[in-house]
């Protein structure tokens, strides 16, 4: 018998569930200033298991957890340590993963690839960043060749600078537009909270602070729902005198964790796990590090091409808001107006925060909930820019849509008939 199976077929990958901790502000005033990063991941993993009681923990084939800084409480192969700390059986392996801001997104695509290949049936993928404990770039030692050979402008290592660079490249994106977008993000998040659209996917976290005792955190700490464009206009531009990027039109420095449950379509059916989204395609792309915020554009084009879809087919966008300018450059490129209701319906990272490696799964969890709310949408996109000049994009299909590929029967997947999008 041959070691390679000529009958091997790709399997459909579905997003079963996703949760996250409430996000906190990094630093002493943050709700997690005395809480460990790995403990935040553990809360998410346990919540996933509680919410999906039909999944035997021993069936989890791998646990991929992303963190940008993999030392201290984010070190020691955090996917494995978090699995052990969460009480998963010792037979369940785990690993750590890093693609800076797209860590959790990469954890999803990497393990999804394993599912499609047949190596896994069920996985947990997520991410964490405790930026209070691990300021961005802490302990990094950039190779001097970056500088001496002009491989990367040193300014590109500072994300705020790259956002200013993006304003330079696209003069049509003014500070006013960025501020206006940011205020809208705050407002949309407040509306989502008011509509109870955020809370169902939050894991309550008890955290203790010296001199205060234990408290319970059930909501995000960063949002400023009252933010007005006028207030934003007055903020300092820390990266450049008379610049355009402010704390108000960028994501903050945050602590938080996310985790998602993915499965093959067959396994989801077997274990009676809900199917919230089907993975259609994904892509990563590199751009000049100095304008890393443009990364989602080529990544999205690549993912669309693989799926055989056009941007017009995308009914919902969950784009990470590292900076307002980066979202606007994406929207301008694709000719989408900035208040298009398909874009970031629940607001984005400018309001809720962006604990680097954790954010990808937040986008997916929110897209899944929007799919449920809006069965008229067939395809959605989750995308984000990545430090050092990259972009990531993942396209998902809504199982609630009438034309859902696997609707005819789960047998389609069981029989191994790859959908047209997998071609």
């Amino acid at each position, binding site marked *: 018998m041959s070691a390679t199976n000529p009958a091997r077929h790709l399997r459909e990958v579905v997003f079963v569930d996703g949760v996250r901790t409430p996000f906190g502000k990094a630093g002493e005033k943050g709700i997690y200033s005395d809480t460990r990063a790995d403990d935040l991941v*553990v809360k998410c993993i*346990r919540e996933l298991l509680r919410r999906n009681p039909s999944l035997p923990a021993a069936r989890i084939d791998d646990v991929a957890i992303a963190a940008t800084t993999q030392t201290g409480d984010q070190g020691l192969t955090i996917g494995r340590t978090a699995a052990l700390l969460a*009480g998963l059986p010792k037979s369940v392996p785990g690993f750590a993963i890093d693609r800076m801001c797209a860590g959790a997104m990469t954890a999803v695509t990497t393990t999804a690839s394993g599912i499609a290949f047949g190596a896994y049936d069920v996985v947990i993928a997520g991410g964490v960043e405790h930026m209070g404990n691990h300021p961005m770039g802490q302990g990094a030692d950039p190779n001097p060749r970056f500088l001496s050979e002009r491989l990367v402008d040193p300014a590109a290592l500072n994300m705020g600078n790259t956002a200013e660079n993006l304003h330079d490249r696209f003069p049509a994106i003014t500070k006013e537009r960025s501020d206006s977008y940011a205020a809208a993000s705050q407002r949309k998040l407040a509306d989502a909270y008011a509509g109870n659209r955020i809370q169902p996917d939050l894991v*309550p976290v008890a955290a203790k602070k010296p*001199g*205060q*005792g*234990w408290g319970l955190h059930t909501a995000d700490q960063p949002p400023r729902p009252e933010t007005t464009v006028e207030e934003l206009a007055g903020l300092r531009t820390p990266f450049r005198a008379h610049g355009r990027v402010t704390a108000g039109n960028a994501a903050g420095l945050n602590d938080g964790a996310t985790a998602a449950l993915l499965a093959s379509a067959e396994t989801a059916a077997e274990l009676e796990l809900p199917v919230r989204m089907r993975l259609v395609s994904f892509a990563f792309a590199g751009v000049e590090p100095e304008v890393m915020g443009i990364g989602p554009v080529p990544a999205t084009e690549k993912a669309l091409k693989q799926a055989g879809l056009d941007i017009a087919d995308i009914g919902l966008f969950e784009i990470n808001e590292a900076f307002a300018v980066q979202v606007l450059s994406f929207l301008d490129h694709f000719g989408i107006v900035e208040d298009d209701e398909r874009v970031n319906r629940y607001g984005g990272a400018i309001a809720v925060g962006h604990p680097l490696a954790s954010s990808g799964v937040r986008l997916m969890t929110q897209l899944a909930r929007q799919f449920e709310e809006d069965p008229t949408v067939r395809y959605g996109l989750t995308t984000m820019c990545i430090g050092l000049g990259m972009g990531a994009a993942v396209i998902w299909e809504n199982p609630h849509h009438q034309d859902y590929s696997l609707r005819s029967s789960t047998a389609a997947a069981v029989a191994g008939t790859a959908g047209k999008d997998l071609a």
Partner: protein
Amino acid sequence: MSTADFQSLARRFPDETITHSYVRDVHLPGGATLALLTLDNDLDHSKPTTLGPNTLMELGLALEGLRERAGRGEIDAVAVTGKPYYLVAGADLSAVGSLQDAESGRLMAQLGHEVYGLLNGLDVPTFAFINGAAMGGGLEIALAAHYRTVSTGANGISLPEAFLGLVPGWGGVYRLPRLIGPANAVKVMIENALSNNKMLNGSAAFELGIADALFEPADFLEQSLAWAAKIISGDAQALQTVKERRADKANYDDADWDTAVARGRIFVEAKTSNAAPAPGKLLDLLEQGRDWTQQESAAAEVEALTELMQTPHFRNTVYAFLDLIQRRSKRPAGAPDKKLARPVTKVGIVGAGLMAGQLALLFARQLKVPVVLTDIDQARVDKGVAYVHAEVDKLQARRRLSADAANRTKALVTGSVSKDAFADADFVIEAVFEELTVKKQVFAEVEAVVSPDCILATNTSSLSVTEMAADLQHPERLVGFHFFNPVALMPLLEIVRAPKTDEAVLATAFALAKDLKKTAVLVQDAAAFVVNRVLLRLMGEVSRAFDNGTDARTADEALRPMGLPMTPFTLLAMVGVPVAQHVQESLHAAFGERFHVSANQQRLIDAGKTSLWETAEDGGKHIPQETLDLLQFGNSPVTGEELLRATQDALAEEIGLMLEEGVVAGPEDIDLCMITGAGWPMHLGGITPYLDQVGAAERVNGRKFHPGR
């Protein structure tokens, strides 16, 4: 009364490490607001939270504030939890132990009731989330709450008051039996407390019914809050589950109650001879309190605590527990700088008999280094190694060792007929026949093989370490290392310093003792060291009275008021009459008539008798006529009271002499030795506080052992 009335008491403890009461509001799913109170001393986990007067004041004031907020409708529930690993470890013993007058004691007892009553009496539901250790007053806080959750990761859940010389008098004695039934309450408060202070873990506490819900530590607080939210919102199923479970756990009638008390009394009598008042007092409260209201019980609890806090038994226990077990045993008096200690990577044991086997098992398990046993022929060596392997198998069967650890331990223990196997050992201990020439011969042979740095140790119980070292090439390397039987159970290790023993050798001996998890006490090389000298002086007094014509039962029961773990004649049989006689003779040789060598004991040995008493089928004991026929008695019998007093005086004299001779650094070391080496009760404070209290020290030595106390 209100919390503020206790200000005068609290002011007397300006240096108390306060466990603060931090309160934060938690908004629960469903909309309720719960005030979450965290007991936290803001120190790391090595400093347990405790309850002193200032701590209770702060807690009381916090709860009074919450009572007002509840009255205004601002909060819907109150919950108490602790810093990581502790709900709260219990009353601040050093504070409670220092309350010199009855009135202060009474205030302290009342303060607890005042504060816990607030938690119990709130008009909103109250919860305790038992996240970690909850001992004594710590557990009683939880019992005062309306509902409890407990973590599977919690350890150290107990009501140890009876063990300490008190009663669980902050409501525990009233609430626990009503929650988990009288039989289990007696088990927790009496049997566990008096069995080396055995404690419950979270799962066991839940199983007994101490808590209503059990959650895992990873998200214990979150799940406890989620559960509390259900209770607060009136979730019918959750409430019904609690109700049914409590009814099941507290399913008892009056007869069960009385039976539980009676069984408790039998246990206390067997375990302590009722030598200390606390366990009996606890059972009195339980017995009388069967039909009491909580207020009636509280009044009686305050009285009992007030009384017990003034007893020497409680004071002695606090001394034994805090000053000896917790402090002195961790920092042995006279131990050299531990930096001088040399690593021990291989251990040699001369002899392969029963003692050698016990030592080999201990060294292999605790040090995890190769241990080699030697003896004069292969059969003995094989038997010795086989004994250790069989013991390892037993540990594995009892799940005390994993299969891998059992394999590792067995592989570490080997045997040889040649002492050449000691060539690379760092520490060689002998456990051969108790005969000086034999031991000297053994050490001469060992010294011929080992490296110049190898430490030699003797497990002798009665021979002179100095004489044993006399002919060694390196006498500075010999140290006494006296274990107690059974080696695995008895904590004490007497480390004997001979005049030439050097500092590095001594430091290594102490480091080794610590790694072996033994309580080490430094003793000078004097006959029989500490424990055996004190024990045999005592046994000699009793056998002297017996030989002089005192009735056996009177003689053997005379020391009952001391509450020793067994009677002298029972101890004699357990040690073995010939062994006891041998040690007694060597003490007689060293110290003369103070140590009575009993002719009757010799007659028992000669006739092959192993015990004076014989246990009849009905459990009663008697001396068989054929044994009596062997013995000869004088005609100057004494009463039990006279013998007790004579024994107290003899002990005071002997210990006074030992301190004069400098056998140990102070009376505290004698006490620590008697508690950890002979199992003498903590309510005697070991022995010297007791000898002070009964007047023996002043009668015999003209002064107390602890003049300031």
